[in-house]
Structures are given as C-alpha cells and as structure tokens.
C-alpha cells in the first residue's frame, strides 16, 4: 500500500511543479489560470495522501472559483487577447530566472540540510476530527480573526472598486469638488 502512495506522491509532485512552471510559459490567458489551478489540485492531492484530507479537498474547492475569476480578469483587462495575438509578456527574464532558481536552491538546501524533528502523527488519530476540535476549541480566536479579516477585506475591496466614491466618480480622481460660486 505504501508503494502506491509513494508512487502517487511522485506523480502529483511532478504534476504540481510542471503545471506551476507552465503557468508562465503559455500565451493563453485561460490556460495560464487553469495551469495554476492544476498545480493547486496536485498539491491538494498531495495533502490528501498526507492524511490532511480536509485541507486538500478545501484547497481544490476554493481554487476552481478563484482561478475562473483570474481568467476572466485577464480577459477583461489585457488589451491583447493572447491566442489571437500571441506575444511575450515577460520582462527582466534573466533576473527573474536567476532569482527563481536561487530561491529554489536556497530553500531546497534548507529543507535537505536542516535537521527537523522526525515525529509523524501517531496512527489511530483522525486528523479531520482533530482539526475540527482545534478550530472551534482552543484556536477559535485565530479562526475567527481570519474570518473577520476576510470580511474586512471584502468590504475594503468593494469600497476600492465601486465607481461612485465619496467625492464623485472614481475615474475622476480623488479631489474634493470645487464649490461653485452662487450668484
């Protein structure tokens, strides 16, 4: 059984990295968004093999909507529908590649060389139940804070994008209106 799990892990690991890389190699907006989603789905699957079922599935569930919205935003705001007009959307390619490779090497070295404690979860526990008890027990404050933060962000985001602001339309700048002289 552990042989199958190992094999699945490597399939998902390769899939996650390759699809994550393809996000920036494609010239189609929708493909970019859905490659990223594929990367998230692969990571979600890895989480499921790690016994974090709830987290993995929630990650997959969240990402469908978010990546569809990403695709739509790109279609809305990019002036050249890629595919119709493929072109390179990359700048400072060399710097970025070096930085990316550097980040990978540094983090991988930390991961390989540092000596982390080897304490796997004891068998016979149910991680989903543990998580539920934790979320609504000792760590409820953290969980609630995350929820409140999300609510605040939702309100902030709506305020930011709404067309009519306190001082008139958003695209007219944010200066106070000049008082008109009355006769």
């Amino acid at each position, binding site marked *: 059984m552990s042989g199958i799990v190992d094999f699945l892990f490597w399939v998902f690991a390769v899939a996650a990295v390759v699809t994550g890389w393809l996000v920036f190699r494609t010239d189609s907006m929708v493909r970019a968004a859905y490659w990223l989603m594929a990367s998230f789905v692969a990571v979600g699957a890895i989480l499921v093999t790690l016994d974090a079922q*709830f987290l993995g599935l929630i990650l997959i569930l969240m990402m*469908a909507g978010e990546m569809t919205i990403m695709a*739509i935003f790109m279609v809305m705001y990019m002036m050249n529908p890629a595919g119709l007009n493929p072109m390179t959307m990359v700048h400072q390619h060399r710097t970025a590649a070096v930085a990316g490779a550097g980040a990978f090497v540094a983090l991988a070295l930390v991961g390989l060389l540092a000596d982390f404690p080897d304490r796997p979860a004891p068998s016979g526990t149910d991680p989903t139940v543990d998580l539920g008890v934790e979320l609504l027990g000792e760590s409820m404050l953290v969980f609630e804070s995350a929820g409140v933060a999300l609510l605040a962000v939702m309100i902030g985001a709506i305020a930011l994008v709404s067309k009519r602001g306190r001082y008139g339309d958003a695209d007219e700048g944010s200066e106070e209106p000049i008082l008109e002289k009355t006769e």
Partner: protein
Amino acid sequence: MSPAWAVALVGVLLMVSVYLVAVMETIFGLRVSGVRGYGRAWALPMSRAALLLSQRRSVTERPDAQAWALAPALLGGLGAVALTAIPLAAGVEVADVDAGIVLFGAALVQVMVAVFLHGWAANSLFPVLGAFRMAALALSVSIPFSLVVITTALPAESLSVGLIISSQESLWNVVRQPLGLPIYLITGLGFSFWAPLQLPDARDLSGGTSAEVSGAALLVWRVARASILVAVAAMGAAAFLGGYLGPWLPGWLWMAVKTFGLLAILVWSGHRIARPRMETAVKLGWTVLLPLALVDVFVSGALTL
C-alpha cells in the same frame, strides 16, 4: 472493494442512470407537448447517440484543441468522482474518505472549470458567452450550495457521508432541515446547468458552450452533463432523504428509488419552469438562497446544540 471493481461499478451505474435520465427527459417532453404513447421514448436515446456517433466532429477557426477535447472528459470524470463519495448501500462505499462530503463539493465546484474551458476553447462568440454565464451562475450558487451541504454534517458530527446517512436513522434531514433540500436542488440544477438553469447552454445562445460542438464530442458532453445531475440527485437522496435507510426493501433499492424520485423532480422542473434571466438567476443566488442557507445553518446548528 478493489479499485478495478469500484471503477467498473461506478461506470456501469452512471451509464444506466444517464440513460434513464434521457428516457425521463423524453417522456416528460412528450407529456408536456401533449403527445400520447411513450413506448418510443425507451429506444430514442440510443438512436440519438448512434446518430451523434456517426457524425464527424466540427472544427472552428483556431480553437484551443486540447482544452476542447479535455472539457467533456473532465466533466464526465467529475460526475464519476462525485458519485464515488456516496455510499450506494450499507457498507458499499466506493471511496471511503472521512471528508466525503467535501470531496463531493470539490468535484461539483470544478464543474465550473470544465464548462468554462468548453466554452472558451471553441474560439467562437456564443460558446464564450456561455462560459461567462457559467462563471457567474456557478459563483452565485456555490456558496448557498456548500452551506446547505455542510449543514447536513451537523447532526452527524462528521463529514463522512456514511455517518451522515446513519445519523438520519430516527429522522431524515429533509424534516430536520426543511430549508436544506429545496436550496440544494435549485443550486444543484445550477451546477449541472440543467433546465431551467441551463443558462450556459441555453437556446438564446444557440446552444451556448456546445453551440460549435458536434458528433461524439457532443454526445460525451451531454452524457457528462447528465452524470452531474445524477450525482446531485444521489447526494440529495443520501444527505437529505436518509440514503439507503428504509423498511422492507433492501438498502440499494431504497437508494435507487430516492435518487430517481429526485431526478424526476429535477427533470420535470425543466419542462415546467421558465429559464430565468441571467440577472434574475444571479440575484436569486445572492439575495435569496444565500440568506436562506445561512438561516438553515444557524437554525440547524442551534437545534444540534
């Protein structure tokens, strides 16, 4: 259950149910249009499938060919995955996952991706408009959908579908959470973009995301769409109607009866209720179903405590 048997079982069950959905659809259609004699309805889906199989696939100008081919297969796969989360009889669970109901939700939400790809990849006006409609529709129904589905886990104190069913031994969730099933069915129609919520594939878009598809690809798409509807009905039966629980009859038969009862309601509503405007559908999701789903969560939570 060994994986090979499980895959075979889900595949066969799905094909049989999809065929029955097609027959039901034909019979309801004939009934509403006032024609008597439904004998023809049993063979008609077979003939239609054969006709599509003898048709060549159509090609648009510069489609995203890989995504176009992938989308129907992805949709069908999602239907199958969603079905694996549901115990078909006592102890017959294809995928025995603790968080089964989350697996089901994750599979259904990904339907949005399959439909969006299907519309986008054709590189044609009406399919793309269908894709945009799917995004708007699925986003507006997904939150009430998730809420009412997760609420059924409250009395069971577990996310496992098997435990959710056995928690309904004394009382079905449809009674315990009366708001749940109607909201679930409406939003489920949205996810399977079935009439009256077939906005992404509607006739005012000449077929929407499938307007440019023909032949075997169209057949696969239609079968996959029906398989999502089957999965929605099966989960409705499990989460709200006590699944395989019931007196006298064997468990699997109870499950089949409840599933097809719900399927009949869903298919029937497609012929009897008008397709809403896009704006009405989105408003329904955000301003009616979402508050009602929250009420459902709060009331059920209070009752569970």
